């Protein structure tokens, strides 16, 4: 099915995807923002669709997507706490919102149609707790910029949800700029509707001595293509990236994580857990790049896939691109079915097959899940993440 060298057919788009629709929709905005949108729209129109010739797109088939039925771009509801709306904050113009490290057709579309852009700006030495909950329309464009100044600390939880089943589009961009000595925990939970094509980029820049924990859960959507990129540009920066993915039916999750060590004595720890049922499919490509001069890098990447049905398929592809000596880099990956001995053990204590399976699957996610912040105001977060994943995977009793 995947043939490198062939180009994706353009995704069929309806009249909502037009310059006229853009002008009409954002008529009342300030000029600088309108200009930004127009320029982005022009770049969207002039840039090519991703091609299967691109290595990073070759495992995801866009051919079945059809967005002619989408009548309106944008919309949806965003609830924020601890974050400001971009355009309403004085620093907005300077910050200019999140910037993708590499523009694609999807990030250009995101910039053209984004609404309710969130800005979390934490002053030097300050602390912040922020939550951003986005409930999507037919097509929506989450856009978030998190800026942590020197020695500040923040926990930011962002949820993308949509409980409809219709075909939809979500194209998001989140940028996390983490200043020297700052500490950030960013949790993303994606629970989009069953028919949604989700194209997403999360990118982080880590300055010297900063400490970043990313917990990224994907449970919803029909198709997800997610780029998670972290650049450790300052000496001694530390990154933990914990991914949790659940898939059922014919869901397709294609996750590309790239960690760039560009400064000495930087540390990264990547842990992905994926559980699939039905005919779901996942791809995880984890790339660790160690640039020249990034000596004493310590990087480790592990991914494990649990297949709850015979038809499910998961691929983990680790890549190490190391340009310097004196580094420690490692990776591990494993894919397998549910362990029959574990199942028998739990069932021998009276749990039904479904209950036993659920417990094993929850256990499978546990080590990545414990990295999500909990307690106090954030007490709901781990349960919410667990619940989002488990709803997709609910055990045998229901599925027979």
């Amino acid at each position, binding site marked *: 099915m995947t043939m490198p060298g062939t180009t994706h057919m353009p995704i069929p788009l309806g009249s909502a995807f037009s310059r006229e629709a853009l002008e009409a929709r954002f008529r009342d905005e300030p000029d600088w923002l309108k200009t930004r949108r127009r320029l982005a729209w022009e770049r969207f129109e002039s840039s090519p669709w991703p091609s299967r010739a691109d290595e990073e797109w070759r495992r995801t088939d866009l051919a079945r997507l059809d967005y002619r039925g989408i009548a309106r771009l944008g919309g949806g509801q965003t609830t924020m706490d601890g974050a400001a709306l971009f355009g309403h904050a004085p620093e907005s113009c300077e910050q200019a919102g999140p910037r993708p490290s590499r523009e694609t057709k999807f990030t250009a579309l995101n910039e053209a149609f984004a609404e309710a852009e969130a800005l979390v700006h934490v002053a030097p030495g300050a602390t912040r707790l922020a939550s951003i909950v986005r409930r999507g329309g037919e097509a929506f464009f989450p856009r978030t910029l998190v800026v942590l100044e020197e020695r500040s600390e923040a926990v930011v939880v962002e949820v993308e949800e949509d409980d409809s089943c219709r075909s939809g589009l979500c194209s998001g961009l989140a940028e996390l700029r983490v200043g020297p000595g700052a500490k950030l925990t960013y949790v993303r939970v994606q629970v989009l509707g069953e028919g949604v094509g989700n194209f997403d980029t999360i990118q982080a820049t880590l300055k010297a001595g900063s400490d970043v924990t990313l917990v990224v859960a994907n449970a919803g959507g029909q198709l997800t293509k997610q780029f998670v990129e972290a650049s450790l540009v300052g000496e001694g920066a530390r990154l933990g990236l914990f991914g949790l993915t659940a898939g059922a039916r014919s869901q397709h999750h294609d996750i590309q994580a790239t960690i760039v060590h560009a400064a000495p004595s930087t540390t990264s720890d990547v842990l992905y857990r994926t559980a699939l049922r039905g005919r779901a499919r996942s791809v995880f490509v984890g790339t660790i790049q160690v640039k020249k001069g990034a000596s004493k890098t310590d990087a480790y990447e592990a991914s494990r896939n649990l297949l709850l049905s015979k038809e499910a398929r998961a691929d983990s592809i680790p890549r190490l691109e190391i340009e310097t000596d004196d580094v420690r880099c490692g990776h591990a990956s494993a894919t397998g079915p549910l362990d029959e001995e574990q199942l028998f*053990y*739990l069932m021998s204590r009276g*749990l039904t*097959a479904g209950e036993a399976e659920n417990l*094993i699957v929850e*256990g499978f996610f*546990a080590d990545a899940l414990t990295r999500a912040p909990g307690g106090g105001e954030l007490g709901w977060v781990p349960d919410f993440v667990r619940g989002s994943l488990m709803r997709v995977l609910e055990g045998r009793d229901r599925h027979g």
Partner: protein
Amino acid sequence: MGETILTIDDLHVQVEGKPILRGVNLEVHAGEIHAVMGPNGAGKSTLVQAVLGHPRCEVTGGRIVFLGTDVTGMKCDERARRGLFLGFQNPVAVPGVSVANFLLAAMGTRRVDGQPQKISIKEFRTALKEKMAQLGIGDSFLGRSVNDGFSGGERKRLEVLQMLMLGPTMALLDETDSGLDIDALKTVAGAVNRYAGSSVGVLLVTHYQRLLGFVKPHRVHVLVDGCVVRRGGPDLALDLESVGYEQLAAEA
């Protein structure tokens, strides 16, 4: 003689197409402790796993009757809810599932006369604390993943803790004594002795006379190559120490 609790009737079992049990008969009454002994590979674990309904154990003949009901075709969880319990020879690790959550989930499945038994968190805690103290298990156990990174002795204690918490009518303990130091062995044997009362049945699979010094079985069955070749009282275990299985099997 007490009520019949478990009847294993001419049981034939294959594992992956290979015959392992070749017509095993065994009957346990309320108030009795039985011991099953035999050389490595004789089929002892296969026997107790078949009684619990391990999907790998294919019953090709005979039946298993528990409290008057033929359970031979039943799923494992159904047998467990009816009051059968297996203490595993090699309890498997379940990473990410804490002992506390696991025990709570298991307790939630208990049935008495077919009715679900509700237990409050408070009652659960109280019962748990008491049994843990009895077995010399520390609180730190509860937050650890089930059997994950446990020493051999810790695993066995957790099996016995589960038995005490679930309160089965019939407990099959597969080499629960192996891997225990002498103090742990005494603790576990004490717990088994206390547990074995007038209304329950206990079946111990063991290699060692050592355990039988602390737990007095009413009957000893010697399993060799999938068949019971000898039965007797507690003294049979002593004979085995001196004679060995091979000679015993030859004599049979």
